[in-house]
């Protein structure tokens, strides 16, 4: 019982660290007298997850409990957990933001995130459940040379998880800072400590339930907001959209986005343009490449694959994907209302003023719809959505840390160092916990070190590596008779290197010369614009003068941004990898790296020979199709 007492105290400490961060929150988000509301909502949600972890900690005894909750999660529970694992802050806040700022393109962007699960459902989920045990590499190692494939598999898993984790930590730090106004470093540490306490003590059991709770809260919050937004329109979609496109704020936004061509358009045309493609995605090929990385990369994301080992049978794995698709898809349909609702009621100018990426669209809409910044319910809604966003970051990070830790402890330590010989269960759990602390500490350190960096590229990179390395290797191991160790090793290496390499020479990086040129353009145009503003003010027309004052403010902002950009690239001539301009135009390398990743597995397999891979084909193929001998341990 002393162990439980220690765990309890450690959990309380983790909660306290996270909570201490809250009272220091800023005046920017909630009005001063409603600060206690934010505090209470955060405390309630953190306390709930802590309680879950405390209960879960008692159930984690074996490695199977730690990595896969003993395979005792039901299909429906797992479906909610997958949704909780997958709906990261980027998709939850980011897509609503994209829709609020760019209309149609933002909504189109959300589609790929759902379609990705068809690949998971049809090709990956059930075979993985039938063959795997704890990790992605288990599947590769079952058929191919265990030592070699575990090494390359684990490296790829750690690469993908670290990229994704860094993006989440940095994005989360910024978000928590914006939402509740605490320091960036403090919010990164709060996210890290809280996540570590879930994973360390509660393993997959606690991680699963934290993800389920988060998904339920997220969906509930979205439904409430959408109901409040939609009710005045009698639940009519055309009536709602008609009102959105008739709104002057929306029309002004489109005029700003289009620039000169907007001058000949009527207000109605401008509004309608918000529902048409092309305001965000300028290069179609980028959108297609990104779509490929999403649709094939999700099936190679280690923290998503790992979720299929938590259910007892292939039938439950299937059921969990169907549930996940219902929840994730339903959520993105709700996002349509959140995004367009935010554009209509909050206005894109106000959204972009708080966060240029539009991440605050959802929270600001919640505040508006609850009654505004001066009302109790408005602040309650803002606090609630902020707390859900916080829970979102923690839940996603927990799943990622668990995936990376399992690759280190299960694949590298037990599988490679011990060569698969029997390792005592207690030792396995201890190894898993040590790996968790290592990964968690690294995540916090990277999160703090990467402050202010552009991390969007890392999400693209994680999906690109997953789609170009993990996906071809897993798919061909499962479905191609000729596939073997050489193929898997070369596929993992080529896929990872290509995805990373192509991203490093893509337009995602900062190119000092281009930044300087853009800044110069803004600065050079200043005198002419100042003259126009002065002329407008001098004209004596009140409306013109008011517009000129607005323009002057916008110009001041643009000038200071241009100057800041110039200062940032001061003395630099080339990008991080020494290029003056990008070698490829694609933002996401998927279009090239996915086919080449497949090619590497195929060529490697044809060139190499491996008796084990050939001998195991019959067994792998029968087992993945029939579930023969699939471990159905439920442990409880």
């Amino acid at each position: 019982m002393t162990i439980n007492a220690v765990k309890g105290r450690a959990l309380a400490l983790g909660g306290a660290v996270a909570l201490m961060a809250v009272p220091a929150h800023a005046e920017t988000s909630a009005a001063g007298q409603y600060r206690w509301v934010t505090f209470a909502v955060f405390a309630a949600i953190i306390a709930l997850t802590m309680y879950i972890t405390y209960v879960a900690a008692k159930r984690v005894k074996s490695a199977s409990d730690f990595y896969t909750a003993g395979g005792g999660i039901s299909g429906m529970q797992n479906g909610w957990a997958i949704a909780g694992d997958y709906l990261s802050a980027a998709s939850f806040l980011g897509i609503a933001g994209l829709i609020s700022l760019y209309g149609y393109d933002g909504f189109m962007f959300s589609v790929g995130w759902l379609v990705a699960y068809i690949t998971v459902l049809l090709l990956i989920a059930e075979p993985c459940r039938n063959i795997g045990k704890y990790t992605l590499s288990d599947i590769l190692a079952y058929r191919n040379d265990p030592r070699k494939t575990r090494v390359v598999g684990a490296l790829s898993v750690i690469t993908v998880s670290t990229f994704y984790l860094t993006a989440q930590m940095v994005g989360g730090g910024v978000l928590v800072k914006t939402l509740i106004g605490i320091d960036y470093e403090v919010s990164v540490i709060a996210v890290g400590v809280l996540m570590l306490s879930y994973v360390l003590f509660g393993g997959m059991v606690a991680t699963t339930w934290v993800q389920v709770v988060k998904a339920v809260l997220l969906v509930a919050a979205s439904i409430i907001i959408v109901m409040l937004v939609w009710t005045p329109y009698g639940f009519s979609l055309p009536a709602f959209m008609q009102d959105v496109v008739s709104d002057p704020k929306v029309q002004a936004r489109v005029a700003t986005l289009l620039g000169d061509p907007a001058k000949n358009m009527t207000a109605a045309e401008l509004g309608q343009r918000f529902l048409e493609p092309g305001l965000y995605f300028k290069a179609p090929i980028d959108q297609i490449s990104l779509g490929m990385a999403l649709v094939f990369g999700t099936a190679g994301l280690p923290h998503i694959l790992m979720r299929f080992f938590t259910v007892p049978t292939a039938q439950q794995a299937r059921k969990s994907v169907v549930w996940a698709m219902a929840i994730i898809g339903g959520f993105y349909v709700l996002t349509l209302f959140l995004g367009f609702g935010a554009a209509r009621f909050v206005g894109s100018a106000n959204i972009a003023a708080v966060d240029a990426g539009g991440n605050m669209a959802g929270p600001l809409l919640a505040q508006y719809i609850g009654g505004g910044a001066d009302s109790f319910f408005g602040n309650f809604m803002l606090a609630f959505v902020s707390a859900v966003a916080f829970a979102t970051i923690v839940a996603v990070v927990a799943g990622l840390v668990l995936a990376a830790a399992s690759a280190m402890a299960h694949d590298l330590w037990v599988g490679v160092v011990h060569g698969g010989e029997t390792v005592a269960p207690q030792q396995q759990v201890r190894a898993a916990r040590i790996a968790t602390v290592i990964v968690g500490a690294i995540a916090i350190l990277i999160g703090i070190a990467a402050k202010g960096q552009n991390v969007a590229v890392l999400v693209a990179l994680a999906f690109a590596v997953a789609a170009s390395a993990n996906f071809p290797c897993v798919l061909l191991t499962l479905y191609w008779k000729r596939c073997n160790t050489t193929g898997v090793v070369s596929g993992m290496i080529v896929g990872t290197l290509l995805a990373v390499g192509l991203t490093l020479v893509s337009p995602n990086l900062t190119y000092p010369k281009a930044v300087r040129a853009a800044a110069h353009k803004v600065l050079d145009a200043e005198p002419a614009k100042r003259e126009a503003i002065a002329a407008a003010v001098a004209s004596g027309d009140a409306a013109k003068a008011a517009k000129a004052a607005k323009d002057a403010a916008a110009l001041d902002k643009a000038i200071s941004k241009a100057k800041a950009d110039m200062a940032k690239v001061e003395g630099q001539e080339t990008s991080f990898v020494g290029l003056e301009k990008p070698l490829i135009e694609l933002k996401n390398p998927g279009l090239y790296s996915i086919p080449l990743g497949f090619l590497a597995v195929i060529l490697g397999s044809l060139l190499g020979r491996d008796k084990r891979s050939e001998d195991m084909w019959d067994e792998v193929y029968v087992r993945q199709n029939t579930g023969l001998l699939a471990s159905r341990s439920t442990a409880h």
Partner: protein
Amino acid sequence: MAPANSSIDWAAVIADPRFQKLHRRKTAFLWGLMAFSVVYYFALPIGAAYFQELFKIRVWGVLNVGLLFALSEFVVAWGIAIYYSHVANTEFDRIASEIAADFTKRAGS
């Protein structure tokens, strides 16, 4: 993995006509559905990029072809999931568990 699995004759399962039938049926069904979903999905970004005039046509109030097509992606994805589950639940699972039970018994005796 339990050492008991060595007693199952995997080649015999592969040669079993029921397994052959399951394999043929699943291969055609899964890859067909997969191909359809990929084509249907990529029609959206391709349409948004190259068929903008079509996407702009208003159909239902201010709702245009593009918006309704994007919404249809959700319906189609859910439809595929439900259809696949139905076929797998009623057909694939039955054959698979029959084969599994049969060969587990043979391995045991």
